[in-house]
């Protein structure tokens, strides 16, 4: 069950240049939210009709926390919100990650702004979890994962931080048998990690993005090409309702 309500900003700060972390008091949403779900956040300037989908990064009893990058008009407006300001929000939305039984070797793979949605997942995963985080340059939130006591590896494209390269390279270097993968980040990254997973016969869940209008599954705006096992052909499923988390094998990447 999702709700549409007004949430109050209770914490808001820029964690690295252009990337903001915002905590919203929204008990109704927090109550039922699961890792991998998202909210629709409505820009205060009503010339912008559409809400912006932003993943839940962490979930507490009364509030949810999101981490977002300022890329355009909507996120620019969010970054101007002050503590105690109110904002319209709908959620929790989407399917979230599927948490399997304990005892597996989990690998969490995050790239850039795909990292925040993985934090709540990391908290809740059973079994052993290794976290691979890739950045353009400046890392952020790595310490949040470390604080959970997990093994965290960092890569940066610039080579200024951690491993010089991308998460795929780090994944290839893993020596133990990977049980399952959870990935979120740029499409290119998700595709290459999914290819690797397929080759190695490892189940993988990926969280995808697409432009949204309703966020509820009604408008069919947010299509992603999915070919289910045993189906003849792909069809467009809805990122907002059937996703955002899909099996990496079922996504038709080249299209």
């Amino acid at each position, binding site marked *: 069950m999702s709700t*549409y309500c007004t949430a109050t900003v209770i914490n808001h700060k820029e964690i690295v240049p252009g990337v903001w972390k915002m905590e919203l008091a929204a008990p109704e949403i927090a109550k039922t939210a699961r890792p991998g779900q998202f909210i629709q956040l409505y820009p205060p300037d009503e*010339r*912008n*009709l559409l809400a912006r989908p932003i993943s839940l990064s962490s979930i507490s009893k009364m509030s949810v926390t999101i981490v977002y990058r300022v890329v355009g008009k909507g996120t620019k407006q969010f970054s101007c919100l002050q503590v105690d300001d109110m904002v319209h929000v*709908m959620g929790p939305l989407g399917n979230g990650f599927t948490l399997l039984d304990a005892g597996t070797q989990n690998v969490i793979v995050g790239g850039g702004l795909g990292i925040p949605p993985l934090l709540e997942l990391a908290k809740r995963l059973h079994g052993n979890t290794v976290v691979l985080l890739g950045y353009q340059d400046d890392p952020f939130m790595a310490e949040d994962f470390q604080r959970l006591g997990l093994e965290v590896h960092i890569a940066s494209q610039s080579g200024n931080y951690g491993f010089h390269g991308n998460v795929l390279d780090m994944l290839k270097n893993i020596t133990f048998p990977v049980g399952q993968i959870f990935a979120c980040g740029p499409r290119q990254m998700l595709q290459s990690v999914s290819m690797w997973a397929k080759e190695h016969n490892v189940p993988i869940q990926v969280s995808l993005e697409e432009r949204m209008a309703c966020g509820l599954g009604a408008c069919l705006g947010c299509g992603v090409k999915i070919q289910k096992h045993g189906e003849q052909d792909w069809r467009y499923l809805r990122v907002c309702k059937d996703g955002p988390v899909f099996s990496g094998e079922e996504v038709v990447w080249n299209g």
Partner: protein
Amino acid sequence: MDSRMETTIAGVTWKNPVTTASGTFGSGREYGELIDLNRLGAITVKGVSEEAWKGNPVPRLAETQSGLLNSIGLQNAGAELFIENDIPFLRQYDTKIIVNICGHTLSQYCAVAERFADCDIDMLELNISCPNVEEGGLSFGTDPHVVERVVKAVRHYVKQPLIVKLSPEVTDITEIARAAVSGGADALSLINTLRGMKIDIHKRKPILANKIGGYSGPGIMPVALRMAYEVCHSVDVPVIGMGGISTFEDALQFIMAGAEAVAVGTANFHNPYATVEIIDGIRQYMKENKISSLEEIRGCID
């Protein structure tokens, strides 16, 4: 329930004059999580074709100032699955069911109409803005002769009251409206989207994969209202007005222009409670202004 808001269109009585605009509300299931579907005068479902349509490539959505571009391309699972899943779902609610149908050829239109002839639905809405694949891809809805022909053909199969939904992309909307009526429309609805475009100046390409999409939302309302007004003054069948309606004030403008009922589309995305807030707003306005029936204000603009 409040009989003062009852509205009868082509013999079908809605409890209030507010429905959803096709394609913006699915078959109601999703919005039903947030609002009480029993509140709606009618639910107009997304376009249904004879067979499944895959729809257009993504991105399919672009936000504009006070508006939205979409190029969904009428993705739908086809009449069969719709009849199996959606009609029983909708029939649980005390609201009228309007099925919006589409096709790329005259025979596809007829086939889907026939498919619904014996179904338990209240009205059929014929979307004539689809590209006419047999005749170069221009929309059916832009030529009065084609409009009359397609309405007549479909009429033959339809058993429910038939609403014809007009495309605004024409030189003279009244000419098209008259053609639809002479083809046998029991009611008209308008407007469908205008075609629009948006370009990402950083990527130097259109935002929609399809380049051009249907423009909806508050930005089209002045045009929609003008066309609804013109059509109400040129045909005798009831008109369902839509295009940018977001508030009860907007809805009342259409009713004063002569519309029998209104549909709410893009506003649902901006505010999922839009439909019920509009219904409540109209009721409140009637109360404050001591209006006991919408007839007192309907078409008051001469």
